[in-house]
């Protein structure tokens, strides 16, 4: 239930205005109530059921002649007056001894009248009604708006139960997905949720959607729009100012002899002018007073600090309390600037530049307030905050120094400031010394929930909110996952991926599974087998794979064997998605993209890709591919069994391509380099293939002998170093996985199923709904509900497979010829002139853009680094604009500069890198082997992308195959471009040098496209959907 919080502030004067007013006795009496509160006081305040925090202080007089104050402050639910009644009712007897000392009362009945008499509201306004408005100048702040004491208690109880249920279910079954887990919890806690007073999902103030104003402000900072919004909300400040100006203008007009309507009309513009003059005068007086201020840079008393810290960080208590007492400067302008600062902070909160409950981005404050004690210049700051004082103050200094400066700079001795808001608290160390000097130990402090941080309270509220939004979370794994994330920590990562929905191959190249095979299957003839679906046998086969948990999902691959599955457009058509893949008609509402529907073998795609007319296999006759990986040969025997099982159901093998990983032999490479040993690079057949060990984490070698996979995009949200922001390679998951935002912040189009498929026994309801307009954010708003279409593509990706045969001998021969040719010339570009072996390597490195060991030419222009591929990956954050703008090290036409030009194409364009990153491919290819498995015959190129045209086809057509790439001529990729219709005889490769470019011509291609296709790698729910009626839903916790 959402409850407004209010602030009780009681300031009871005591003492005789002499210098001998000693607050020691009263402080000690207060201290007997405890910090944290003793049992009796804590019990009494808990019984009120409205008090979040309470503290009591004896504030000494600011100077002889003033009175000391007993201050009782509390943060309460509901109206402060009612809360004061409850406090007096429950805690009155315990407060009486203190009140007797200060005010001489000795009867319980006198407590409430005394407290009421000295209770004050808080008002941040600059202009106030004199005499009538007895509220104190100040500013209250609530860190958990809407969360009442009872709600926090109830939430904690429910969360504890939910946590226990989750732990139990996790132990019981490994097949639980986020939704099923959520469903179990929601079902079991139905009774507890029913007991809640308000079962309507609460609108939590700190939740957000992508259009939350504070997120916008974080991006834009103070634009004119925000300033305008602020001024529009400062009516309480501006209108009285204008009114003053107007009255003065009228008076001047009267003095000048004007009268009647003309006087009133004519005073308008002068009023504005006078108001501006007032503002200028205030600024001038303020500045003058700032210059007159002498900062007090004093080391805090060790004894006082010790006394304070003895009260902080109580064992088992998460929040802390602080009280600071400073004296406002005497200058009259401070009477304006202090409330002005309060007003500014209040307006900022109102217009939404700060998340509700946050001060700037500080989310650790439970409740705080500034107040000026009545009849004094004492500015008192009370705060209940999480964590240590040091971290709290550091937060203020680094995240909200302007706000702190604006308020505190009105007090004597604050570090030097400039125009109220600037400097001051920026000087962090002095600010902390000042703060500590102004602080007093807190003698009594009560926290209703001492074991909970603000974060925990927010988390609990979100968890309960999620349970109340059961329908939405049950239907949506990202929400269910976001909900489960809340049992860990918030802010949860807003790029959280639904790991268990995404097939394992997306997350990595499965280096620990070096034995692999790609098997393309054909569904064969339709076989209804008593079902409504013509390809019921395929559904049965899929259901079997699912039931046996053979298809691996998530970022943690099974240890021995991984099976992933992808469907061609034709395969999906046969399984029932014919309308979404229609080749005829006006196009579908939101189906598959035409490039996928047409397939890679379609003439239009061949034209774009420069592919040969004839392929040994393609996606037209292939319906599904199994991507099989094993850690060793023994585990690899399962490959045959899976194919055999499929065959039993009539699903036939179209092609089976054996692949594997081979470790790059750095030692041999180094030895050959040092000894100029021709055998490594001299013309020869492809060397024998030795499978890498499953424990080997090095990068693999492709058939031409180069380390492969150095430059991969780092997908935000992927585990490991992918999670870290990378300025060059970091890309959003939506660039590869459907259902997540891409680099531009939008969702890539995803095929939806918006029709009934009962006739086929298929239930689109099994599919996940399309992602909400906003993904769950750091503080997900579960209460934002709405029905959305079923998204087949969600958590899936388009997979490009291309079988590229590589003529290793031909490639080496070409290198040899070119090396010999160059060595004959007295060429100054070649650093190894005269050394055939090294020249061959140098040319090869220039063509690829890296040496064989993966080291970049950018950093190693003359010699390979002789380090592992992993080292090359670590040094892969260079930009061409800075490192090699003229292509002197890494030629413009080299393979790596083509496939990912970084900022090379437009070095002066600041967004060029982001343009390049729109065309990244998540590569998962491997060398493919001959039937014996002894020799690598080429590369089975595989790459994931969210948009085939924008990513794979673009890279292939515009960058790789283009003879005019980067302003070159007749220069397609010299390394990986396959033979095809676009091949010309005068293809060349240019190595730029200081004097004149070295042109290699002709350059032949030694890669041949044998086959391939476009496939779709579905998410878990999409696979379940395809299995249709054959799926046992109970076993998968779906019912």
């Amino acid at each position, binding site marked *: 239930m959402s409850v407004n919080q209010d602030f009780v502030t009681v300031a009871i004067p005591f*003492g*005789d*205005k*002499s*210098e*001998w*007013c*000693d607050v*020691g*006795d009263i402080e*000690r*009496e207060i201290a*007997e109530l405890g910090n944290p509160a003793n049992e009796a006081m804590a019990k009494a305040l808990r019984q009120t059921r409205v008090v979040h925090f309470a503290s009591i202080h004896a504030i000494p007089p600011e100077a002889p002649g003033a009175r000391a104050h007993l201050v009782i402050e509390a943060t309460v639910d509901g109206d402060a007056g009612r809360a004061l009644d409850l406090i007096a009712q429950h805690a009155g007897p*315990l407060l*009486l*001894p203190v009140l*007797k*000392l200060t005010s*001489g009362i*000795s009867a319980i009945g006198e407590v409430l009248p005394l407290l009421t008499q000295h209770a004050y509201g808080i008002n941040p306004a600059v202009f106030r009604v004199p005499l009538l408005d007895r509220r104190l100048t100040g500013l209250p702040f609530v860190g958990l708006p809407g969360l009442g004491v009872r709600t926090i208690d109830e939430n904690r109880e429910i969360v504890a139960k939910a946590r226990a249920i989750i732990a139990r279910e996790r132990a019981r079954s490994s097949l639980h997905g986020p939704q099923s887990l959520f469903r179990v919890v929601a079902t079991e806690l139905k009774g507890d949720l029913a007991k809640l007073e308000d079962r309507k999902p609460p609108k939590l103030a700190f939740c957000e959607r992508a259009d939350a104003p504070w997120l916008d402000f974080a991006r834009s900072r103070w634009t004119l729009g925000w300033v305008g919004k602020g001024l529009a909300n400062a009516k309480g400040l501006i209108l009285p100012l204008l009114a003053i100006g107007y009255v003065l203008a009228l008076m001047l007009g009267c003095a000048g002899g004007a009268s009647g309507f003309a006087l009133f009309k004519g005073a308008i513009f002068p009023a504005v002018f006078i108001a501006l003059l007032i503002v200028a005068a205030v600024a001038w007086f303020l500045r003058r007073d700032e210059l007159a201020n002498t900062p007090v840079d004093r080391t805090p008393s060790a004894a006082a600090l010790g006394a304070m810290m003895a009260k902080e960080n109580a064992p088992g208590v998460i929040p802390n309390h602080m009280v600071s007492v400073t004296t406002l400067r005497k200058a009259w302008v401070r009477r304006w600037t202090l409330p002005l600062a309060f007003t500014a902070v209040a307006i900022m909160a109102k217009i939404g530049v700060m998340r509700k409950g946050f001060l700037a981005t500080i989310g650790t404050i439970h409740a705080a307030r500034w107040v000026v004690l009545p009849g004094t210049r004492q500015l008192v700051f009370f705060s209940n905050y999480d964590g240590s004082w040091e971290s709290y103050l550091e937060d203020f200094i680094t995240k909200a120094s302007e706000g702190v400066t604006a308020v505190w700079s009105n007090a004597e001795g604050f570090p030097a400031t400039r125009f109220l808001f600037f400097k001051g608290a920026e000087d962090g160390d002095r600010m902390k010394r000042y703060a500590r000097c102004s602080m007093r130990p807190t003698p009594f402090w009560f926290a209703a929930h001492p074991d909970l941080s603000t974060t925990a309270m927010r988390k609990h509220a979100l968890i309960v909110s999620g349970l109340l939004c059961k329908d939405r979370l049950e239907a949506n794994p990202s929400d269910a996952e976001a909900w489960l994330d809340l049992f860990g920590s918030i802010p949860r990562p807003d790029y959280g991926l639904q790991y268990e929905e995404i097939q394992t191959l997306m997350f990595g190249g499965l280096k620990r599974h070096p034995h692999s095979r790609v098997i393309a299957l054909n569904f064969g003839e339709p076989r209804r087998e008593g079902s409504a679906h013509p390809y019921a046998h395929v559904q049965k086969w899929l259901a079997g794979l699912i039931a046996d948990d053979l298809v691996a999902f998530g970022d943690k691959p099974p240890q021995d064997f991984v099976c992933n599955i992808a469907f061609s457009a034709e395969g999906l058509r046969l399984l029932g998605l014919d309308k979404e893949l229609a080749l005829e008609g006006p196009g579908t509402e939101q189906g598959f993209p035409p490039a996928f529907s047409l397939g890679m073998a379609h003439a239009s795609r061949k034209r774009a890709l420069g592919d040969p007319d004839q392929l040994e296999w393609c996606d037209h006759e292939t319906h599904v591919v199994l991507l099989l990986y094993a850690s060793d040969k023994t585990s690899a025997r399962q490959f045959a069994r899976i194919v055999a099982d499929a065959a039993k159901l009539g699903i036939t093998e179209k092609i089976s391509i054996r692949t594997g990983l081979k470790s790059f032999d750095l030692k041999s490479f180094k030895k050959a380099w040092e000894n100029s040993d021709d055998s490594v690079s001299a013309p020869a057949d492809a060397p024998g293939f030795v499978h890498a060990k499953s424990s080997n984490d090095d990068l693999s070698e492709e058939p031409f002998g180069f380390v492969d996979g150095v430059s991969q995009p780092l997908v935000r949200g992927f585990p490991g170093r992918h999670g870290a922001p990378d300025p060059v390679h970091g890309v959003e998951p939506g660039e590869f996985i459907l259902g997540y935002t891409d680099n531009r912040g939008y969702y890539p189009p995803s095929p939806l199923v918006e029709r009934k498929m009962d006739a086929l026994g298929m239930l689109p309801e099994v599919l996940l709904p399309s992602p909400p307009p906003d993904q769950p954010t750091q503080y997900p708003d579960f209460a934002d509900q709405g029905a959305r279409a079923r998204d087949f593509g969600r958590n899936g990706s388009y997979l490009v497979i291309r079988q590229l045969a590589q003529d290793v001998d031909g490639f080496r021969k070409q290198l040899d010829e070119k090396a010999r040719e160059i060595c004959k010339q007295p060429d100054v570009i070649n650093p190894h002139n005269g050394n055939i072996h090294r020249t061959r390597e140098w040319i090869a490195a220039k063509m690829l853009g890296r040496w064989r060991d993966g080291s970049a030419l950018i950093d190693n222009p003359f010699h390979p680094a002789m380090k592992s591929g992993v080292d090359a990956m670590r040094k892969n954050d260079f930009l061409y604009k800075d490192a090699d703008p003229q292509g002197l090290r890494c030629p413009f036409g080299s393979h790596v500069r083509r496939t990912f030009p970084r900022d090379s194409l437009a070095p002066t364009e600041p967004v060029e890198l982001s343009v390049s990153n729109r065309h990244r491919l998540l590569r998962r290819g491997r060398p493919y082997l001959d039937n014996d498995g002894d020799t690598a015959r080429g590369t089975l190129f595989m790459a994931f992308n969210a948009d085939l045209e924008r990513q794979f086809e673009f890279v292939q057509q515009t960058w790789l195959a283009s003879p005019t790439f980067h302003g070159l001529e007749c220069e397609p990729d010299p390394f990986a471009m396959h033979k095809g219709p676009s091949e010309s005889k005068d293809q060349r490769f240019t190595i730029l040098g200081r004097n004149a470019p070295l042109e290699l011509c002709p350059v032949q291609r030694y890669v041949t496209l044998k086959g391939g296709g476009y496939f779709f790698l579905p998410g878990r729910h999409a696979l379940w959907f395809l299995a249709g009626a054959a799926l046992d839903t109970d076993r998968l916790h779906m019912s």
Partner: protein
Amino acid sequence: MNQQAVLAAAARQLAQPGAPALLRCPALEKGGIRVFAAARHEVVSAVLCDEETFSLQQYDELLQQVLPGTRYLVGENDANRQVRLRQLHAAQGWLNARLPGVDPKLPPNLDPGFRGWIAAMAREEASGILDVLQPRARTTETINFVREYAFLLAYRMARRVLGVPAPRTVPWPVPLMLFARNLIKGGPALRRKDELGDALSALFLQVPLFGHVFGTITTSAGMLPWLAGKTASVGLAAIDDAFDMPQVAPETSLLSALVAVEPQFSEVADYRLQARSVLFELTGALVLIVGKVLSEIAAFSASDRGREAGIPWPSLVERLRDPVLEPRARDAIIAEMLRLADTSQLVRRVRHACIWRGEQLKAGDRVVALVGDAAHDEAAFPQAHRFAPDPARPYITSGPLQGPHVCYGRGIAWTIIAEAIAATAGRIEPAPGAKLGTFVNLPDDLRFTAIRQ
């Protein structure tokens, strides 16, 4: 010749070689009650210790005269006094159990842990007072050490140790006394505001009674008993109020302790009355005696006499600040200072007719033990005018060396005084020519100045 002059003359005679142990003082006799004076250390010590011969009934009767039912521990060791002593020990035991570092095997009032706790409090309070006085270094305004430090500190300590605040309202003689004081004495007027006002009130409530009880040799009559009753009854009422709301007292105060141990005394019908007497006596002892002797020590040390004795103020402060000073040596310094500054006297009543040290005494005779003179007896303290602290010296300024009336609170008092003096280091110092001024026979003014930091 007034009472003090008579006693001084008697003391001089008693100090002569071959002088008797006791000297009759007819000038002080009243209503047929004979008065003797004792001045030599061994005689005074014997008078104070020999309770078979010399009773303390005098004090009981004087108290009964103005405050019926109220007694001091400085009185006859009767059943009620035994109850009060038990109360005190039980309360002290309860208190010590809540203090860190207290050894339950030691007498609770002398335990180092307890004294350490007292010392920490005294330091805290002294520091708080000095913080207020410190700004006067800028204005060169002088400090009245007696009122603004000694008696104030004594009151604050009494407030914390005993747990009884000064009454909010005081009878009219108190403001009148204050008015008289301000009229007579020069310098800044004293105002009854805040803690200083409370200290003055608490003190002035005790002064007439102390005059009545400890200044009377034979009988007390006239205004003084009336005044003593008028003021002291308000002090007692304040204790009654405190008992009614013990939560107001500090948790570790004697009042809280006495309330807590009350169930142990179910057989004592007038528990509150006896406990009130204990608190009342200790309030007087702390508020008046500690403040008084602290002032007197400061005055002595700041005077020429202090310099001649070899213990000028700076030297005294330095000695007490010595961090490696043994507790016994520290006590000896304070006892030695008390001895040097001592001018006190105690009265005993002869219990039965007897011959004592060759003197025929009758029941009811009064013996005035001139403790101050005994403290300067060369026979007990060679070079008696010189400062020579030694734990082995037979100090009697804080009461008899043995017997049931060995001073219970001397450890507390010595600790407070030692800490109070040590705390002044670098903060305040005697003003040049500082001289102790008195009012109603009590210290009233001693000029100090704040040291510029």
